[in-house]
């Protein structure tokens, strides 16, 4: 049995609209007075609250606490058990709002909260997918933040005109088509397909992606054929690099967002990663949301190694 943990406590604090945001504060498991007091903040997990999709934030925060860090996880307004509401919208529209910085003001409130509870020598922001974007945009804005570790950050804006069927990179699509190819000779699979039990859109996407290797692009309107880049990402990147804040981008190496990051950002601006003003970690076999505990452990170990290298604590 996992030992009883007495080093996590529930916290709450208001945002600028007076809504109560709720979360959990992790304390370092081994109190070491000689260490600098440092904290990592995880905001939203995609469009989920502070535990993160697949409970990733909880597992990662507990690892970081074992590594000597304070960690604050909190749910922004409208998520988890925090006050506030997110009005009905299309799922993609919610992603767009997050990519435009929906939760940045709440991260500002969280930073203010941690400054009130203790004198931390540094603040690191991290998060996965939409949480990565929230952390990255906030890191550009908040002078109190010195380090940022976005995991699976989207450089594209979600958009109703985005062709999601072809968003998969070709090599990932090939893998998926291979699965369906094997099922060609399975009577059970044919029965599922013919009785409409199969998820047709899941099958269709990779097959289409095979023939359109460009990946995600806008399929209609004036911008047809272009990538739906997120201008906020580029603006934030410029500000962060200009102020010499330390950045570790993390991607799972099977994450389609890694492919987009390379194509739209990395290869466009930097001949090689070593020329870039940031560090990069690719987690072997990991997917976009780090859905398996093994993936979460690998990434958090890379985070710890990077933070120790930069003498964060």
């Amino acid at each position, binding site marked *: *049995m*996992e030992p*009883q*943990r007495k080093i*996590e*406590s*529930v916290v*709450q604090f208001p945002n600028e609209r007076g809504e*109560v945001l*709720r979360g*959990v504060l992790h304390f370092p498991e081994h109190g070491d007075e000689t260490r600098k007091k440092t904290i990592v903040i995880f905001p939203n997990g995609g*469009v*989920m*609250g502070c*535990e993160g*999709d*697949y*409970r990733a934030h*909880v597992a990662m925060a507990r690892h970081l606490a074992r590594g000597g860090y304070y960690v604050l996880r909190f749910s922004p307004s*409208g*998520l*988890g*058990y925090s*006050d506030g*509401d*997110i009005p*009905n*919208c*299309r*799922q993609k*529209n*919610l992603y767009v709002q997050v990519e435009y910085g929906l939760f940045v003001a709440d991260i500002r409130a969280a930073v203010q909260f941690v400054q009130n509870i203790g004198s931390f020598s540094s603040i690191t922001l991290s998060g996965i997918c939409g949480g990565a974007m929230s952390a990255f945009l906030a890191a550009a804005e908040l002078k109190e933040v010195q380090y940022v570790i976005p995991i699976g950050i989207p450089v594209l804006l979600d958009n109703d005109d985005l062709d999601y069927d072809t968003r998969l990179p070709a090599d*990932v699509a090939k*893998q*998926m088509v*291979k*699965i369906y190819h094997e099922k060609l000779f399975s009577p059970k699979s044919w029965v599922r397909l013919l009785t*409409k*039990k*199969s*998820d047709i859109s*899941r099958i269709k996407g990779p097959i289409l992606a095979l023939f359109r290797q460009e990946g995600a692009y806008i399929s209609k309107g004036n911008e047809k054929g272009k990538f739906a880049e997120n201008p906020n990402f580029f603006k934030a990147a410029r500000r962060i690099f200009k102020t010499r804040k330390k950045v570790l981008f993390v991607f799972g190496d*099977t994450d389609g967002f890694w492919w987009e990051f390379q194509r739209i950002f990395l290869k466009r601006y930097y001949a090689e990663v070593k020329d870039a003003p940031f560090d990069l970690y690719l987690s072997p*076999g990991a*997917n976009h949301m780090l*859905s*398996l*505990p*093994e993936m979460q452990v690998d990434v958090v170990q890379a985070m710890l190694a990077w933070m120790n290298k930069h003498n964060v604590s």
Partner: protein
Amino acid sequence: MNIENFFHDTGNGRIFCTLISPQNPTEECVIYFAPLFEERMWAQRIAFNFARDMAAKGSHATLVFDYHGYGESDGNAEDFTLARCRDDVISLHVLMQTRGYSRFVWWGIRTGCAIALGTIPAHAPINSFILWAPVLGLKDYIYESLRANIAAQMMLFKKVMAKRDIILAELVQYGQCFRDGYVLNHVDGYRFGGIFYQEILNMNHSKDLSYLAFPSLVVEVIPPRAEKGKLMARTESTAETAPAQQNIQYRKVSEREFWLIGRDYSQRAESVYRATLEWLDAQASGSKTGEASLWNRSER
């Protein structure tokens, strides 16, 4: 209303709880059983908002808790078992009784209904039971859900390392299925353990709920036409298989499958809320007798 997050120490690990209660005291307490796996995440805010509605109305407080190994609670998902959950729920009942609650409604969503039914102890102090889009056949549900696991193996290993039957056989025999550094007995990344799976195999998978001794509401969710037919989305029809029972009311409502990611995002499920509130009101205006017997700690 008041919203309070806290950790409850059961003596065998901490359970994370959120109590959403009306401004004025009430004796009525709803205990919420969340779905397992990733459906839990998508249903979270739907459940939270219903709890807020009940608290704003002043009728019921709601205790939302994370199972052992889930959410903010201690432990890992593979250590979750029905036996442990039963102990945790008994401990939570005792806690709520010390806080002045004496009438209890159990409320489950999807697989949370099966968990609730699987953990009901003898002489449970429950006054009524609400089941939303219940999944009662956990064995079939897990088998079906493992389809996505096979696709994930292809992405991870470039081939299928263990098919569903192998995963489950090894789980029963060895307590886990392990290949190339990865545990494969998981649904949506949430591991499930051998003891839990054995408990599932021993469960009553009947959709007949007529054995329930207290008033119960089953809300079946019928998705709008455009949303129908998604993998893993089907709601089991308990109404068709169950004989008419005075204790049990079945309601079919049109609502999107809020426990899944879909085209539309909403934090509310108005049709389900309405049907449930109507039923709760009818319960309240009916007999208020049969107050739940208090559990003593010695009965745990």
